[in-house]
Structure formats: structure tokens, C-alpha cells
């Protein structure tokens, strides 16, 4: 019943990628870019931590998941002039976007950290011109900053929680590129006039070889402990600070780069790990790089049977290695052994019920879904699922509970949407 009893202690096999320096791989031979349609207005739901904080793992933009339909395909051009970057990329049809905020406010700032106050409009101009997308929820940073500058928030948080095993992209960025990340955070704080800023990280890592510092550049780094998933504990920690606003680590880094170097957001940091990878590390790649090139860059020492785009608990296994890394991809993992496909019958042991962080009954949802019983699915509140995956992880009969509960959740949400 208590939240610290839910979930499971996962072995966070994050080394060696956790402590290694990041590398850059900015010159792939092919880039695939996703399509953004400005005609769709996204809903204004933001990740705050007040009484209505739900803490979900789904993304608002389904087209940003790793099975997005591909539109643009770029090939590397030869360098036009001497001394330029060896490879540059040109759009075949460049999207024409109307800027809402003035891009001409991109001013030449010598040291943006040294000034006392930044105009909110300036930051919005930078964020829009650089087209920054927050990697935790897939929203454009402009939209998030607009909501923030409306007011009413007491604290700003940098979300560096990496709770899935093998994934360490956020915490590694925070530790090795801390000046950029925390510089971005402090710029937003100055623009919004909020003094309570901190970073959050998940510190329950058994095999970590480096110590996460408690403070960097006078900004505290608060630690979260506990079983996977940690969202309930994060909520309690954040609620102590009043209304908090959460940004992703890489969005802050890109905002800093946009202000200081006028760089457009076209790279992302992913973890490349797994037992088939020769040099597991965190890698900064251009958005649109294929998984194949990423794995070749880090070296494959064994033949993988599963390549996963995303985290080890919530990611998707891909069979086509030409799928691109997107803004919200956190990791590319390659495992040698396949998971046993043996599915036994449910023995009602109840472990999924004890471990579910939302108090659902995945075994009953599984049985009722297979019996096509929609009323039972509604009564069992399938819409409360946060898709963390602990039920499938712990099931001794190897049932595909997460898959079934996700589909049950879609059905129940449809019915509820129809009722309204």
C-alpha cells in the first residue's frame, strides 16, 4: 500500500557508459528527419508538480516516438569551401515556419551568465529560432517557456533522472556538460525571476564508479532514491517546493548553446550500451542518424538478437536498423540473447498487484482483455496505468502484461472520451 513498497529494485547496469566522457558523432552518411506539422495545436498540458501532477510516461506527440513515418532524407554534401565543416547537410524542401517571436532579438551576448536579468522575450526568441524540443515530453521549449513566464511557479527543476537500466544520457550530460546545462537553467531562472532552482538525479545506482556531486555551480543536485518507477517519490520531493516546473537536461543545454553560439537544436545525446556494444558510452549524435551508424560507431563485438531504441524498460525493439534517432530517443541498446518466448498461464501469484505503482491488477486486466470484457476493463481502471512495465518485468509466467494493459488503456480512454 505504501509507495516505497511498489516497483522493483532493478540492477542498473549503467557502467561503463555512466562515468565515461561523452563523444560526438556528428558526421553520419545519411540523415532521416521526422515531419512536424504546425497545423496541429498541441494541448497545453505541462509537467508540473502540484496537486494535479500525474507523472505519466507517455508522450504528447505520438509522432515523435521511434516508429515515426519518415519524410526528409538528407545525404551528406561535399564541402563547398576550404576550412568549412567537412560535411554539411541541405534540405531538399525546407519547412517554412512563421516565427511567433522575434528572431531578430538574437543579440550578441558576451557572457550571458554575468548579467542580472534577461528579458523573457529574448529567451523565447532564442528558443524559437533554435527550434529546441524538450526531450522528456517532446514539447517545443517555446511552448513550455510561455507557460512558465505566465507566472505562478515557485521552483525550476532540471530533470536528470535516469531510472531505467543501461540508460545514463541525462545524468552523464549533467555531470560532463554541467556548465551548459546549469547555465541554461540559471538563464531561465533569471528571466522568470525564480530563485529556487535545482537538478534532480536518480542515485540508486549500485555499480556507479563516479560520485554524483551534491552541488555544481552553486546549484544543488538533489538525489532521488527508491525502486523503479520513481515518479511517486519525485512528486513528493517536488511538492515540498511549491509549484515546480520541470525541464529536460538536454533542452537546457541547447538553450545555452543557442544563446552563446547561435546553434540550432539538431543533436541529441543518447546512451549506446548493451552486451554487444564494444565501447558503450554516451554519444552526441545528430537527430536523424540511423541506429546502424550509431552502433557501428561504438563497435559491435557480438551479433545482437535485439536492438532497442529507447530505454530497457519502456523502449521499442526494432528490426530495421535504418530507423532514426529522434529528439526523444534516450538510448540505443543491443542485446545478444533473446527473451524467452515461453508464455505460461497466469497462476494469480499477485506479484504484479503488489508492485504496480498505481494499484492496478494487471493479471485481471490481462484475463478480462482476452475475454473482451470492456466493462470489467473500465471498472479495473485501466486508464490509470503509467506504462512503466514493472508488471511484465516481475511476472513469473512471462506474460505480456504491459502490452495488454496498454491496449486496454487505449480502449478505456476511448470510451471515456466518448462519454464526455
Amino acid at each position: 500500500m505504501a509507495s516505497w513498497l511498489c516497483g522493483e529494485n532493478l540492477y542498473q547496469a549503467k557502467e561503463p557508459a555512466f562515468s565515461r566522457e561523452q563523444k560526438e558523432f556528428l558526421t553520419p552518411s545519411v540523415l532521416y528527419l521526422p515531419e512536424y506539422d504546425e497545423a496541429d495545436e498541441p494541448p497545453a498540458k505541462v509537467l508540473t508538480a502540484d496537486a494535479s501532477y500525474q507523472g505519466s510516461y507517455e508522450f504528447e506527440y505520438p509522432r515523435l516516438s521511434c516508429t515515426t513515418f519518415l519524410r526528409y532524407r538528407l545525404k551528406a554534401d561535399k564541402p563547398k569551401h576550404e576550412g568549412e565543416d567537412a560535411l554539411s547537410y541541405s534540405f531538399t524542401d525546407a519547412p517554412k515556419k512563421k516565427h511567433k517571436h522575434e528572431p531578430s532579438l538574437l543579440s550578441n551576448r558576451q557572457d550571458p551568465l554575468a548579467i542580472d536579468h534577461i528579458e523573457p522575450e529574448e529567451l523565447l526568441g532564442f528558443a524559437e529560432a533554435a527550434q529546441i524540443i524538450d526531450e522528456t515530453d517532446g514539447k517545443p521549449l517555446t511552448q513550455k517557456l510561455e507557460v512558465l513566464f505566465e507566472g505562478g511557479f515557485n521552483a525550476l527543476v532540471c530533470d536528470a533522472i535516469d531510472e531505467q537500466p543501461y540508460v545514463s544520457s541525462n545524468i552523464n550530460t549533467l555531470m560532463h556538460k554541467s556548465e551548459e546545462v546549469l547555465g541554461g537553467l540559471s538563464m531561465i531562472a533569471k528571466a522568470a525571476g525564480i530563485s529556487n532552482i535545482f537538478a534532480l538525479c536518480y542515485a540508486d545506482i549500485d555499480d556507479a564508479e563516479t560520485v554524483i556531486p551534491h552541488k555544481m555551480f552553486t546549484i544543488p543536485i538533489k538525489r532521488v532514491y527508491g525502486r523503479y518507477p520513481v515518479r511517486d517519490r519525485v512528486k513528493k520531493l517536488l511538492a515540498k517546493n511549491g509549484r515546480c516546473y520541470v525541464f529536460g537536461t538536454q533542452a537546457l543545454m541547447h538553450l545555452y548553446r543557442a544563446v552563446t553560439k547561435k546553434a540550432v537544436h539538431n543533436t541529441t545525446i543518447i546512451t549506446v550500451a548493451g552486451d554487444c556494444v564494444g565501447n558503450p558510452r554516451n554519444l552526441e549524435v545528430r537527430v536523424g542518424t540511423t541506429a546502424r551508424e550509431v552502433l557501428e560507431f561504438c563497435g559491435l563485438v557480438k551479433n545482437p538478437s535485439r536492438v532497442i531504441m529507447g530505454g530497457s524498460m519502456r523502449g521499442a525493439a526494432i528490426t530495421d536498423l535504418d530507423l532514426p534517432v529522434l529528439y526523444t530517443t534516450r538510448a540505443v541498446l543491443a542485446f545478444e540473447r533473446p527473451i524467452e518466448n515461453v508464455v505460461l498461464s497466469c497462476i494469480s501469484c499477485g506479484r504484479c498487484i503488489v508492485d504496480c505503482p498505481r494499484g492496478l491488477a494487471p493479471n485481471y486486466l490481462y484475463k478480462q482483455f482476452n475475454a473482451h470484457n470492456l466493462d470489467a476493463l473500465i471498472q479495473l481502471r485501466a486508464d490509470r496505468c503509467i506504462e512503466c512495465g514493472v508488471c511484465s518485468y516481475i511476472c513469473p509466467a512471462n506474460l505480456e502484461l504491459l502490452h495488454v494493459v496498454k491496449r486496454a488503456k487505449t480502449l478505456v480512454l476511448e470510451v471515456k472520451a466518448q462519454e464526455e
Partner: protein
Amino acid sequence: MNLQPAKAPHIRFKESVHTLFTDVIIALLPLYAMAFFYYGGRTLIMALIAAAVCYLLDILCRKMAGKVIKINDFSAVITGLLIPLMLPASVPYYVVVAACAFAILIAKHPFGGLGYNLFNPAAAGIAFATACWPKEVFRYPKPFEQIPLILNNPVELFSSPAAALKINGAPSGDLLQFFLGNSLGPMGATAILVILSCMFFLIYRRTISWHIPVSALAAAAVFSLLFPRVSISLLSSTVYELFAGTLVFGAAFVATDPVTSPSFPIAKIIYGAGIGLLTMLLRWFGGFEEGFIFALLMMNTLSFALDRLAIWLRFDLNSGRVPIRRVKAAAKGFMARREHKKIYIDTSAEPVTEPEQQQDEAQKEEATAQSKGGRNV
């Protein structure tokens, strides 16, 4: 490179159903060691016969039902190992075989097989044996008497402490000997110390959960504290009641069968309490000296209903887990208002309480607590 599609999550816990079953079998082996120590090799022959009969009948039933034959499915072997432990060591072999056959052929497979059976097969087999051969099932040999493998001459049999309690008499024997197993009773159910250790082992390995054994024993203990059957000291009477018969063994191994017991923790607690209560009532008013098996079969019918009750409690009553913060805020507001309503007798001229200000404060506290804490519906 042969990439396979897979569904999230991509790491799985290393335990499976097979490891669960092997854990239970490992936990039963010390009990067989104790039975061998007290009653000789006959106990092991009974175990082998029971396990073999159950396993072969299980395969036969699966074949008749057209299911896939899995060689490493040991659920029937567990049933086969549980049945002799609830019978006396001197019981003829045909009783064991009949109990196993009933368990597999009638209590398990007609209901759907593994995962779908309504009644616990081991319990059903023992109930069948009890109903058909009550004299063989309830007369026990003395420990440390070597019972021959084939019963050509009759063995001296005695009635158990449970029978003594039924007629309101105190059982003979030291409590310590009861605890260690040197008493009359079913061959696996007397060594209480070993049973409890094996139960703790299984709880530690998360094969079973603590809710059912603890609530069953607690309910039986409370009942026997309130209504003792013998007029010796209350604590001794309770301990005798708990140790005599198959209650401890059943609560640890038979009642915790995951398929037939409820899945929700609160439902498990009610289920265990029901088993304990019904056991004691059947011991008081039933025909036999030991009523655990029938109590278990009765509560098996209520497993799913208790799960429905738990679902109602969790989703319809509370809309989530217990909102502790809201409860605390409400309690705080309640206490604040109660403080306001108390009458202070003060001899000084000025009034001590300011009712309006305290009420405002209490309301403000409640409002802030509700806006900060509490869960969304």
C-alpha cells in the same frame, strides 16, 4: 544479424513459474526428512508413489484435453508431495493413490487445469480420503516406531492430540516435544519448528506472501483464546490448539497455493482469517477432529469474491490508495474544532478563546492541505 521483435520491457526478472515450483519442492524436503526420522522409510515410498501417480495422471489428463505436454511442469508433483504429509505414516498405499487420483482427475483438470482450478487439488484429495476412510486417516502411529513397508501385521495406532482436544481433554505431552515433532499426528504436520522455518524460507524467496499464514494462525489463535476447549492455562491451550492437527502445515503450504487463493493482499488477509475461523468452528462443531481441509475448500469458493471485494475497496471506495494527507488534514481540522468547542473556565477577566479566529485558521489549514496534498480523482 537476425533481429527479433520483442515487447517492452526488455529485461525480465530471473524467476519463473518453474523456479517457484522448485522452491516449494525444496521447502518440502526437510519435512520429509523429519518424517523419515520419526517413521522410517515408508514415508519416502509413499512420497514417491504419490508424486509418480500425480505426475502420470497429470500428463494423461493433458493429453486427453489436447494440451501441450510439458515435461518440466512440476505442479502435479507438488500436489503429490503435499498429500502424504497430511496423512498418517501408517495409512495403506491405496488411500494415498486414491487421494492423488481424486486430486488430479476430479479437482484439477475438469476445472481447466493449471491456473484455472477452483479448488486446491491437494486439499480436495485429502478431503476425499478423510470422507472415505476416516479411521485410517485419523489414527496415528507413535513416532520412532519403524513401520514396515508393507503392512502385513497391524501397527499400533493411537488417537491424536486433536482428538483429545475434541473431547475437551488436555493433550498429553510436553509443549517442546510438540514443537519438535515428537507427537502423534500427520506425518508432515507435527514438526512445527521445521514447518515454520520452511515457511520463512518461502516468504523470503517471495514464493508465498506472509498474509495468508499470518492471518490464518492469528484468527485461529484469537478464537481459541476467546473460547478455549481445555481448562489449563490460556496460553498453553491456545498453543495446543494451534499445534495439533494440520493447521500450521496447511496455512503454510496448502492455503498459500497461488492459483486458488486471492491475488490482492487485503483479500488474502480476509481469506486467511476466514480459514482460521472456519477451522476452529469445524473443530468445535464438526464431525471430525480436524476441520482445516474443509475450511480451506469452503474459502476456496470465495477467492474470486474476495478479489472483487478488494477491487471495490481499491477503486470504487477510495479512488486510489488511502489518501493519507487528506485524512490527516480532516483529522486536524476536526481536532481544531473540538478544541474550540471546549469550555475554558478561567478566572481572569479577559476571554481566552477567540472562536472566529480559530475557525478561520482551521479552515485555512484544511484548504492548504487539500490543495497541496491529496490525489486527483
